[in-house]
């Protein structure tokens, strides 16, 4: 059955990234900025603070990762209480309609550079809830996801290796989801409004 050609916005667009684009705030000759960026990426990679925001069922795996057997603090990762202080937003499991609104609001409160790590298939293609009326099927249309960790409830080993993969991505400067969010902000916003209708809800319970 011939594959139906869907409108372009459904396919992951390979946006052309300039190789290394100097961060706007320090206009200085190329090499100095580059070395400084290299050093900064080393620090960012080795001290990742994750936001304790457990959206779905995969969150139950996090305590195992934090405690003595797997100990993510070895990688320099610590759970932090507020989005202001955190670098990583963990979307553990499915993202329902109402959770997405809170996810977007929290993501925008985080300081850049920030990364989104999605656990399990639910963020990739809706997973077992793909036909539910309230669950989203593709998270990366709404938030720039830097890393997916496979496994319907990924085992702690998978989570640890996922984090180490993220560290590699950051060190190699490839984890630039937050820049993509800033550049294609309108595209993300359009998708969000299409799915959610209105991010900042005003109703009886949120006056």
């Amino acid at each position, binding site marked *: 059955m011939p594959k139906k050609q869907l409108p372009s916005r459904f396919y992951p667009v390979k946006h052309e990234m300039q190789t290394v684009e100097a961060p706007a705030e320090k206009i200085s000759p190329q090499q100095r900025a580059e070395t400084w960026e290299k050093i900064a990426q080393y620090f960012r990679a080795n001290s990742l603070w994750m936001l304790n925001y457990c959206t779905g069922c995969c969150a139950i795996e996090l305590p195992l990762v934090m405690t003595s057997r797997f100990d993510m603090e070895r990688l320099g990762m610590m759970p932090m209480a507020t989005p202001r202080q955190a670098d990583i937003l963990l979307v553990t499991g499915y993202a329902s309609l109402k959770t997405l609104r809170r996810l977007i609001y929290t993501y925008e409160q985080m300081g850049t550079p920030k990364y989104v790590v999605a656990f399990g298939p639910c963020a990739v293609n809706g997973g077992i809830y*793909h036909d539910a*009326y309230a669950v989203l*099927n593709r998270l990366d249309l709404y938030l720039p996801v830097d890393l997916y960790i496979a496994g319907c409830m990924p085992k702690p080993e998978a989570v640890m290796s996922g984090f180490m993969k993220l560290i590699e991505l950051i060190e190699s400067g490839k984890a630039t989801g937050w820049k993509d969010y800033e550049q294609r902000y309108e595209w993300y916003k359009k998708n969000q409004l299409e799915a959610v209708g209105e991010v900042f*809800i005003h109703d009886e319970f949120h006056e």
Partner: protein
Amino acid sequence: MTNSMNSVKARWAAQMRGMFPDARLKKDRGTEMTYEILPRDLHQILAYLKNSGWRQLSMITGVDWIEEGQFELVYNLFDWEQGLRVLLSIRIGRDKPQVLTITNIYAGAQYYEREIHEFFGIEFIGNEDALKSLFLERWDALPPLRKDFDSRAYSDKKYVKRFYDPVYGPQGGAPFERS
């Protein structure tokens, strides 16, 4: 089930039969009894049960029998002293489902009725608070738990899916590769 419970339950069941002849005992699982009753004497039975000890209305659940064209509402009551649970189930027509509210007997029913209205579209006369939305924010389709609501179609329409080329087995890059 201690025998003292048996005697209490037996006595009570006899009273129930005496007062409401057309309340059919559908199922009796020891501490839990299910009655099928007519919608019009729902309030009388509820009032009677409340006086004789069933102080807690645990929940109201809705069931959509689309083939028979009917909705079923099950009122779940619990008596703390005797530890007995009673389920009253009533059947109402599916086309214009309307039931009188029971908030005057059990005040707690207000949010249950509101939820059922949101998910089934059953109207509760006398509880205007029930018309407002409760959980679903900005819901724009049929009440989702009705059988004639196609959840998959809604999900396909509303939330864009991820499509793969139907090529199976290990490929070069992972299905998703940013750059």
